């Protein structure tokens, strides 16, 4: 089982392949669940998250812009945008420092895709939001504090 899981983890480095595996019936739903225990999403500290991304603590860069409200009234829906001016930006990860699992999502760009995206995330409490950018094999990051008046992860 463990051997198999490793293969699956390797395979999902291309998310498209992942879908193909499911439609082909190679990956059963139970294995999909196992695959989501991906190291990166299990990270509970910044150091673990950086390690899962494959970098020591990245240098802060002024070329990364995080667009998020200073105060979010509803932590369940916090609009966050990340734009990078760093050449050859290939990947962006959005982290919330004080969420139980820090990494909210990672995005990998095709060659014609602009490193400029918006999404919405949950925040349990007031925290720094971090954007970790991988460009030309190197990592950079930026952070912005978002104050949350009503948490998004409560029961």
């Amino acid at each position, binding site marked *: 089982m463990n051997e198999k899981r490793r293969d699956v983890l390797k395979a*999902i480095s291309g998310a498209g392949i992942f879908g193909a595996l499911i439609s082909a019936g190679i990956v059963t739903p139970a294995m999909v*669940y196992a*695959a*989501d225990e991906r190291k990166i999403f299990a990270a509970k500290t910044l150091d673990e998250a950086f390690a899962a991304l494959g970098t020591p603590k990245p240098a802060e860069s002024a070329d990364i812009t995080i667009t998020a409200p200073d105060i979010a009234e509803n932590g*369940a*829906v916090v609009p966050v945008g990340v734009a990078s001016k760093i050449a050859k930006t290939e990947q962006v990860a959005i982290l919330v420092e004080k969420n139980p699992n820090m990494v909210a999502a990672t995005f990998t760009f095709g060659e014609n*895709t602009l490193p400029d995206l918006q999404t*919405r995330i949950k925040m349990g409490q007031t925290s720094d939001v971090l954007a970790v950018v991988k460009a030309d094999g190197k990592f950079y990051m930026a952070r912005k504090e978002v104050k949350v008046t009503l948490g998004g992860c409560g*029961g």
Partner: protein
Amino acid sequence: MAGPMRIRAAEKDGIVEVRVLMSHPMETGQRKDSSGNPIPAHHISALTAKHNDKVVLTAEMSGSVSTNPYLAFKFKGGAKGDKVSVSWVDNKGESRTDEVQIS
């Protein structure tokens, strides 16, 4: 079962802006129901966006992405009438693909 995605793809000055609104509960697995039992995690785990048959964006998500996830991104090289498709798969193995033409 998850409903259809709402996708908009608009071309302006050679840049296509794609906006996607998915329909998904995005349960984190950390919440409890009224009788105190944990609600199992149920969230989109991977997403792929394609322009015609070329991948323009892939994403991996956790339950920390908001319910009914929204995603907006831009890519170059698209023309009006081209196809943009978005597929996701969740941690229970459900999946969905929707596509639109660039306007």
